[in-house]
């Protein structure tokens, strides 16, 4: 049987399809790719692709082909080698039995994607093969991939949905959030003008930001009723730390949220590495496209 044998995996390599939508009322967020553009691009590199990708991080990934298969590799900028021979990134690969693929960090990006010409043969859970690491749901046994895991490739894929146009460079656009009016004018003004730094505290649940200006340090603590969370919500923790909530977010939360990253810019934000300066620019709903 055709399969991919994982020979090395970082701690956060997971299987992801487009996402497990429709389960918020049951308390389950959708998960799905951290960078939808890279996920889509990996599929478009193949004439037909399975709906499920391996999402890996800057820790990289290595695997051995068991049987002949094709792979689309995209998202971020990674270093790629087949049997020790370097290849360009992104890439479309034809692999034969025993070929060894090694992916190591490149100059940019936190997440990369591998899609195959067939579907990764894991059972869908609640309509999706996406892994929700917070809950331990879906994907490969509900967990991150490890060396020794064998992913069987099953039914033939289909032409993949194209990637949308990447959003422009520049500040990350936000809409003012659910609790923006609970922050004073100075905090709101500072939020929209000063820069934050992407910290090393980053995973599929959220990205913690360093706030060099300490603009939320004196923010008084608030006791708020829990409301629905959406990916991109920027909540301010009790100690003033801003955190941008990502694909494996809690479905509801009670920390104050000052703003929400617009959908088209969230993927670009997800690829920003620790140490990168990020600026937020409030826009109106009409300018969020």
């Amino acid at each position, binding site marked *: 049987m055709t399969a991919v044998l994982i020979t090395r995996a970082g701690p956060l390599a997971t299987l992801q399809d487009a996402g497990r*939508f*429709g*389960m*918020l*009322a*049951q*308390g*389950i967020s959708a998960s799905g790719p951290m960078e939808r553009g890279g996920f889509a691009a990996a599929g478009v590199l193949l004439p037909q692709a399975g709906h499920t990708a391996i999402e890996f991080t800057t820790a990289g990934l290595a695997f051995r082909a068991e049987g002949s298969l094709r792979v689309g590799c995209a998202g971020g900028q990674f270093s790629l080698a087949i049997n020790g021979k370097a290849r360009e990134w992104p890439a479309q690969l034809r692999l034969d039995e025993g070929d060894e693929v090694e992916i190591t960090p490149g100059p940019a990006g936190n997440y990369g994607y591998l899609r195959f010409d067939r579907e990764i043969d894991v059972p869908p*859970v*609640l309509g999706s093969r996406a892994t929700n690491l917070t*809950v*331990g*749901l*879906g994907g490969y046994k509900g967990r991150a991939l490890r060396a020794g895991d064998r992913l069987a490739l099953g039914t033939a894929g289909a032409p993949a949905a194209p990637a949308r146009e990447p959003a422009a460079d520049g500040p990350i656009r936000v*809409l003012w*959030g*659910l609790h923006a009016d609970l922050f004073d004018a100075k905090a709101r003004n500072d939020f929209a003008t000063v820069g934050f730094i992407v910290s090393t505290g980053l995973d599929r649940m959220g990205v913690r930001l360093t706030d060099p200006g300490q603009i939320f340090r004196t923010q008084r603590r608030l006791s*708020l*009723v*829990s*409301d*629905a969370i*959406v*990916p*991109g*919500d920027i909540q301010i923790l009790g100690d003033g730390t801003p955190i941008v909530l990502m694909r494996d977010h*809690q*479905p*509801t*939360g009670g920390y104050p949220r000052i703003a*929400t*990253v*617009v*959908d*088209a810019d969230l993927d670009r934000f997800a690829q920003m590495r620790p140490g990168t300066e990020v600026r937020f620019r409030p826009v109106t*709903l*009409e300018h*969020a*496209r």
Partner: protein
Amino acid sequence: MTVDLKPTLLPLGDRALLVRYAETLSDDANRAAIALARAFAADPIPGVGEIAPGLVSVLLRATDGADLGAIRGEVMLRLGAPLPDVKGRSHVVEIDFDGEDTGEVAATLGLTRADFIARHGARPLRVLATGFAPGFVYCGFHDEDLVLPRREAIRPMVPAGTVLFAAGQTAIAATPIRTGWHVVGRTRFQNFDPLRSPPTRLAAGDEVQFRSAA
């Protein structure tokens, strides 16, 4: 049902809207949110891919490519309509009141353990919302003299089936979670099974009668 609450319509990013009935939790606001979610589910709004009721609000998630402005207009038009009466299903949930905090909670409330258990199940509660984690339900409201704030410290992982108590509510963990609520017991009632569809048994608006398993 008729309510005097004035809902606020807020964008939650550019792909979702929130209809919020209040900024603090109340029985009226919660009932209104549940009723509105039922009304919208029964008569779908074009472009809305998902409706999720919360404690005092309803999330409407737009499908890919749908125009949020058009959805907002349609929601505005519908918010004036009377809300339906929600009659949820009834459930009985048995609890072993042997949690780490049961004795302390009873003592703080000035009750014996037996009195606390009796008062806890004195009448059925409503499922106020599912949220925080898969199948995690907030049930309320207990009588005002049973209201306790949350604990100062967060407890590391408590297992599925842990029964939690704070803020005039009882909650049931359906998956392992960290919690700042008081642990007052455990139940065999499993409200999350990913292999079932839907994966939860309790829905917002249902009635739950808690009963001592002993």
